[in-house]
């Protein structure tokens, strides 16, 4: 039998490989459920604020997950891209009078280019050493943001004046922000799932699992990591832009405090399920509302106690949900016959 015959003999039963279009129904369903939540909360500004923050953090954690989860490169400098997006948008509005909508694409480009510039030297390091190197970039950015007050407003921060209107991305009600953050989240999820089912997504995961084997399989390791980092940084910068218009005033601690920004993206992704499509969203759905609730309930009686409880919850999650909420959900679904790997996909 010749080789070509052997090839054509492959039976019709041969299964196909999952691709991006297979992910669309679930993505649409998730978007619809989250949209339904926004409609349900309409009028309740407290709840809408929590939803908007949850969606924003979910989007940012999803963006982090591209390189931190799929690529296994534990970055702690995503606050830098986040801050860049915020400052770029603020400067566009304040100094040039541009609509914030116009700054989203340039912010993504700026974030991606900075990500390349930061990660190119940092990728000479691996594992924890890489994480420490990215941490220092974040700290350097903090100092620079304080110093260059013509761009950042220095320690006083930069303020976007209140002129309500669609074009200005400023709204009297909170519901519009919830929709914008949901839009951002959906963009991040779609980008992440598209990547997961693309060649680059496979390459990133291969590099994460074993660099030498990835190289032996024909993967340019450095190029793969750089691309993943750039995409992740670009998405994060867009998040910074919409965050700027949401709060309208930012200062360096808001954008660049390591524990509140850079580490938080990673933490949410870890709690939810690092390296999974929907894990970061699950993580944000747990952590952000829980934080708000604890602050209002426990924190109101004993100041700071909310952080102790939150810390305990995070420790428990790390102990008992090793693969995050997504992993736990996946195991739960796998127990029922006929279901396979929906959550972790």
């Amino acid at each position, binding site marked *: 039998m010749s*080789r070509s015959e*052997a*090839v054509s003999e*492959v*039976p019709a039963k*041969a*299964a*196909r*490989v999952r691709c991006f279009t297979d992910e669309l129904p679930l993505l649409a369903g998730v978007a619809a459920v989250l949209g339904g939540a926004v409609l349900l909360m309409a009028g309740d500004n407290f709840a809408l604020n929590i939803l908007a923050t949850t969606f924003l953090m979910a989007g940012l954690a999803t963006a982090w997950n591209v390189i931190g989860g799929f690529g296994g490169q534990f970055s702690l400098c995503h606050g830098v891209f986040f801050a860049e997006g915020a400052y770029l948008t603020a400067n566009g509005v304040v100094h040039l009078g541009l609509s914030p909508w116009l700054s989203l694409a340039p912010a993504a480009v700026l974030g991606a280019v900075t990500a390349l510039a930061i990660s190119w030297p940092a990728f000479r390091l691996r594992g924890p050493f890489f994480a420490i190197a990215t941490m220092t970039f974040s700290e350097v950015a903090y100092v620079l943001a304080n110093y260059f007050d013509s761009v950042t407003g220095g320690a006083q921060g930069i303020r976007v004046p209140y002129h309500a209107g669609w074009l200005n991305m400023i709204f009297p009600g909170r519901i519009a922000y919830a929709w914008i953050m949901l839009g951002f989240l959906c963009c991040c999820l779609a980008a992440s799932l598209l990547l997961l089912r693309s*060649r680059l997504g*496979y*390459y990133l*995961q*291969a590099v*994460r*699992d*074993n660099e*030498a*084997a*990835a*190289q*032996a*399989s*024909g*993967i*340019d*390791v450095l190029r793969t990591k750089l691309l993943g980092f750039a995409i992740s940084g670009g998405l994060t910068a867009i998040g910074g832009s919409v965050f700027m218009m949401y709060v309208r005033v930012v200062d360096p601690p808001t954008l660049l405090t390591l524990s509140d920004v850079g580490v938080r993206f990673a933490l949410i992704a870890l709690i939810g399920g690092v*390296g999974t499509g929907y894990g970061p969203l699950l993580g944000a759905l747990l952590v952000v509302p829980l934080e708000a609730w604890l602050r209002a309930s426990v924190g109101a009686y004993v100041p700071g106690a909310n952080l102790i409880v939150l810390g305990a919850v995070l420790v428990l999650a790390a102990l008992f949900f090793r693969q995050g909420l997504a992993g736990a959900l996946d195991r739960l679904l796998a127990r029922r016959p006929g279901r*396979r*790997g929906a959550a972790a996909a």
Partner: protein
Amino acid sequence: MSALLTVTALHAGYGTVPVLRGVSLYVNAGEIVAIVGANGAGKSTLLGAISGLLPPTGGTIMFRGADVTARPAHRGPASGMALVPEGGRLFPFLTVEDNLLLGGFTVADKAERLRRLNEVMETFPILGERRFQLAGKLSGGERQMCAVARAIMSRPALMMLDEPSVGLSPLMVERILAAVQTLVARIGLSVLLVEQNTVEALEVADRAYVLDHGNFVLDGPARTLAADPRVQQAYMGL
């Protein structure tokens, strides 16, 4: 006729420690060539140097008529050279299917990749059964098969196997080597096999080289070597 792979006076090492001290070998199309030798003889270093994972410090490597001495490792599969690293080195957190697909990304055509995927799963039915399992959960033998299958996905002209028998039962070793032989016969593959298990290696190989302290001390047809009293005494425990 020029050989598929010709290595001339190859030197390689780690830092200032030389491991290979000028080895030369060739592999013809359709041939299984074994490199046998003791621990630390330089067998894995040799495959690392040929594949580009460890840049050689001297000598030349010609593959399909082109000089590939300084080529980076990730270019190997696209040029027709596939490495099966020691222990398989699968991507443990990806499924068997994803591992296999990763071997085939050298072809841009999606349909062709899928065809190859189905083909290797027919060649190794156990991989078809384990298709959606994480590769990290495979047994040692299945892992090795998966690694061979992943390498086959790029349709290489030369497959380099680094110690496929490590940690496997004798029965599994035989099955894997038999599968390799079948592949050679079916798709016209050449194999460079590095093995500590001299008996098994010489059984499947056409020719063999004996590596000792970074030099080839013997070479010739596998059968002749297997009958050589020096080889029998030093490497086969006879």
